């Protein structure tokens, strides 16, 4: 659709498995200038939240998809025109605001609309209208110009909002085959073919039933949703008195799905051990100044625990393993995930430190600081959150002393670290007598998948981890 020097902004592909994204915020408004690569909007996908840089320089002419909408990867979001040009008037042909929404609503399965597009909080009151407005085309259209549409073609058409009648068919009698429709979508036929019929700006025939000409169609069903989730009951869309409704973010949906799936997959068992952190505390005090002055890095307790965990994992490959089908995967590397809470409680993300076994304490401390800050600034790339083999979660910052985290699938275990507290502790004095001392104690948990890791193995893992932390020898880790 770009003409001249116009540039389309499209929903980027944020990782191979991500098929859609939600616009959380437009950082520029129509009429504002924007530089190449300047942050233009913020999006949220089920993997990461991130800023989208501008694909061109000029003036933001038009926003096609408002905040809060969820759209497929590749959907046009906005148009940027050359500097000095005026924002496109509503009736100017190039932008074609009305037809842009295209016939997608015809093929959006009718049920998802009430799902997560409740009428009230929607900024564009017109948005809910289109889906229920055209029930007839939904039933009629998949006949694809009177030719037979096979079940798989009908399904793909509905998932991608494509009219099979628009797809050139190569099957028997010109029928559209699965291969035809996939090639059509691959070639980008999804948006363009649909917009093409009405470039003049005249309302497309379908909008007649929705005279408000709502620009964005209701989000098409997320491809996975109808297949993996039980259909939500249709009624509870309305809020009762005193209740507030808000749409679930893509990240929240992703977390919800992953947590449920993890509990349905792994046999979660948690074991805990108390660790006397005296050695770590004293070494950390010594290193802190040096690390901060020389490298600007804080050697956190988490970094110490991560370093000791990685060494312990080497002796317990199943804890760093995975059940894949009927086989057990073990590895000679550790991709260590860290659960990071996003600012304002908006979610949780698990960035991964790759090949953590090759990093010393400094490298780990630096790596944790890097991924954690990029997570909070929404600068993570999809690869930063994939491929973890073991995860550490650290909810102890709030003083909790115990927890039972959920395993990040398909990993076999997750380590939880909790508050460091001074406690009366029975130790031996130099004569070998029991005495009570004040010691900094941390409770550390291992939550493991009992399908792969047995309790005794988990116990030995925790015992060895404790031994490493209690007898920390930093010289073993230098260089």
């Amino acid at each position, binding site marked *: 659709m770009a003409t001249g020097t116009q540039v389309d902004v499209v929903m980027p592909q944020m990782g191979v498995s991500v098929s859609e994204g939600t616009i959380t915020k437009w950082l520029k408004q129509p009429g504002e200038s924007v530089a190449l690569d300047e942050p233009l909007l913020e999006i949220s996908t089920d993997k990461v939240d991130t800023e989208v840089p501008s694909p061109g320089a000029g003036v933001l002419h038009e926003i096609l998809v408002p905040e809060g909408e969820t759209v497929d990867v590749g959907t046009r979001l906005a148009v940027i025109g050359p500097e000095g040009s005026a924002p496109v008037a509503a009736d100017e042909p190039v932008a074609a605001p009305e037809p842009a929404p295209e016939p997608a609503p015809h093929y959006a399965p009718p049920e998802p609309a009430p799902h997560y597009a409740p009428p009230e909080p929607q900024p564009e009151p017109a948005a809910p209208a289109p889906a229920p407005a055209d029930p007839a085309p939904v039933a009629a259209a998949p006949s694809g110009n009177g030719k037979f549409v*096979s*079940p*798989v*073609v*009908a*399904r793909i058409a509905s998932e991608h909002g494509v009219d099979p009648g628009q797809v050139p068919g190569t*099957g*028997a009698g010109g*029928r559209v*085959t*699965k291969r035809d429709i996939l090639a059509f979508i691959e070639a980008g036929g999804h948006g363009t073919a649909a917009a093409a019929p009405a470039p003049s700006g005249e309302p497309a025939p379908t909008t007649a039933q929705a005279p408000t000409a709502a620009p964005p169609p209701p989000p098409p069903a997320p491809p996975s949703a109808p297949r993996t989730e039980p259909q939500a009951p249709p009624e509870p869309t309305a809020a009762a008195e005193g209740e507030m409704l808000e749409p679930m973010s893509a990240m929240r949906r992703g977390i919800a799905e992953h947590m449920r799936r993890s509990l349905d997959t792994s046999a979660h068992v948690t074991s805990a051990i108390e660790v006397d952190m005296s050695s770590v505390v004293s070494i950390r005090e010594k290193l802190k100044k040096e690390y901060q002055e020389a490298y600007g890095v804080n050697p956190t307790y988490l970094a110490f625990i991560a370093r000791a965990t990685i060494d312990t994992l080497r002796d317990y490959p199943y804890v760093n393993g995975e059940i894949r089908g009927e086989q057990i995967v073990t590895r000679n590397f550790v991709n260590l995930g860290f659960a990071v809470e996003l600012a304002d409680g908006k979610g949780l993300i698990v960035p991964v430190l790759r090949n953590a076994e090759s990093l010393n304490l400094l490298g780990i401390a630096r790596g944790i600081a890097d991924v954690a800050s990029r997570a909070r600034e929404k600068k993570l790339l999809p690869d930063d959150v994939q491929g973890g083999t073991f995860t550490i979660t650290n909810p102890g910052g709030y003083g909790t002393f115990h927890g039972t985290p959920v395993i990040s699938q398909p990993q076999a275990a997750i380590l939880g670290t909790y508050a460091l507290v001074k406690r009366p502790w029975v130790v031996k004095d130099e004569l070998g007598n029991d005495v009570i001392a004040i010691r900094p104690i941390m409770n550390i948990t291992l939550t493991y998948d009992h399908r792969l890791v047995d309790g005794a193995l988990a116990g030995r893992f925790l015992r060895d981890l404790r031994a490493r932390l209690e007898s920390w020898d930093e010289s073993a880790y230098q260089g």
Partner: protein
Amino acid sequence: MAELTYLQAISDGLRGEMRRDHRVFVIGEDVGVYGGAFKVTLGFQEEFGPWRVIDAPLAETAIVGGCTGAALMGMRPVAEMQFSDFVSCAWDQLVTVAAKQHYRAGTAVPIVVRLPSGGGFSGGPFHSQNPESSFAHVPGLKCVCPATPADAKGLLISAIEDPNPVLYFEHKHLYRRIKGDVPEERYTVPIGKARIHREGDDVSLITWGAMVYTASEAADQLEQDGVAVEIVDLRSVLPWDKSAVLESVRKTSKVLVLHEDTHTGGFGAEIAATIGEEAFEDLDAPVKRLSAPDTPVPFSPSLEKAFIPQVEDVARSLRELAEY
């Protein structure tokens, strides 16, 4: 790794189990002195003696009934039906007694019944049948149909190890015609797991037994037209590997189910129905079946050729699907 014929692989697997486990014995018509009608047990009586390689009278009821009793007393009998066609005489012992024993009394019946089956050599109506679908309808039995020498050995050992009555359909037309690498050591092939004989994206072909080779030749022809056929060798029909079949269907969206047995109520019907039920939204063409017509197997070579699905028949069905 030695190259063995399909028949040698069966013989090898059986001999190995008899050497390893004294509870294993064989019984059947002419299995002893004569070494079996097809020579699977040639030399067995010399090695293991007449008490472990027993020549039985022409009485399949007695053979299977005796095996069931021996299994209940702790033995691991391997019976041979001289031709799978004769198993109908043992139907009552297999279906009424052996298959239901565990359900009724909680006791295991670890018997194996070897069933030389299939046509292609003008054996006529009594010596050419593929009766697997009749038994695949009987809960309590297991039915395996190996196609390769390696699977023939591995599935036979699994069948002997299995605590249930297992019907082992060995295809006569493969006996000396098919050779393949067979590991010398003892190994098992799991019952109920399919094998992808050939990978492809365009059409799935689900089959088993000798039809795997017919399918393979047809797939070679289609390959020249640029159509990639995926052949799923089911290996077991009860239990059958539904997930492997559905996975292939989801990939290709077009399916041909092929078997040598007759059409109506053949096991292909079960597979086609399951695909329709569980993968409907993945289908891009009707699920097709290719099988023998609903008649007894003819004697006449030309009629038998018309009866058993041939490479050309399979290629034609695959082309129809590819062009659909």
